[in-house]
């Protein structure tokens, strides 16, 4: 899934956060975000990342665990790449962890920009 931006990613990917099998990156050249999810890489923008996080946290894990009539799996889509994920509970928990860590780091980066970079402009 490296597609046409492969070279740019190679030149300027900065890891934002990682878990055991997933990671998030930001590329300052293409202004894009990347998710490495269980061996595949996806490029997405900020809005799509926020939307994906919401979908992950909207999943009702309790009902997945307790429902004996269906497999404990959830299907989630990622708009920008027309990708459907069939996720187990463990995978959902890991992706939630990835999202929490990623957004915490992005917000921390925002605070650093605000208090160090932007505040020195005046």
């Amino acid at each position: 899934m490296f597609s046409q931006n492969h070279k740019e990613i190679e030149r300027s990917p900065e890891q934002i956060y990682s878990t055991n099998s997933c990671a998030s990156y930001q590329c300052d050249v293409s202004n894009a975000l990347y998710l490495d999810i269980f061996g595949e890489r996806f490029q997405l923008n900020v809005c799509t990342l926020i939307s994906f996080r919401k979908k992950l946290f909207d999943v009702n894990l309790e009902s997945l665990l307790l429902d004996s009539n269906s497999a404990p799996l959830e299907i989630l889509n990622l708009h920008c790449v027309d990708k459907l994920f069939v996720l187990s509970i463990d995978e959902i928990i890991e992706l939630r962890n990835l999202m929490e860590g990623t957004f915490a780091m992005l917000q921390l980066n925002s605070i650093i920009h605000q208090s160090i970079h932007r505040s020195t402009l005046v």
Partner: protein
Amino acid sequence: MKDLIRQKIAISDEIASSLKKQLQLELHSSNSYLSMAAWCDIKGYTNSAGFFYKQSEEEREHMLKIYKYLIKMGVQPSVPASKEATLDFDSVRSAFEEALNTEIAVTESIHRIYSQCRMANDFATEEFMRWFVNEQMEEESTARDILALFDNFGSDATSLMLVDERIKEITA
């Protein structure tokens, strides 16, 4: 590392989330008014129906205003789903009472967002919400004026038709 989040999105997650809930409330209000309009139309209260149709359009415009603001600030809003509106009313007065209750609920929600903006130092959204604060004052005041007509004229059939005529003047 660039501050991509701030470059793309100008409001916080919390404020965006509150505005998205407000979208839902405005849509619900719009649907409630539509339901009141249908009830009044069927019962022959033509001017009351006209008032409610107009209110329904206004509430939808409010929703669109917030929707477009979210997009302007870099947030991608989802199209809200709305709870089913009440279809039946005991009387035309009770429809107007329901309208006032809906407006009060919207006002309270707007005030919560306004207060949240102040706490978060989100001056842009606070300024944006100021229009809604003023609008809600007007909306509540109109609903109260109409309810006062029912108090003054009474509730027999002739009085209700007189009230319906006066509603045309209030909303003209």
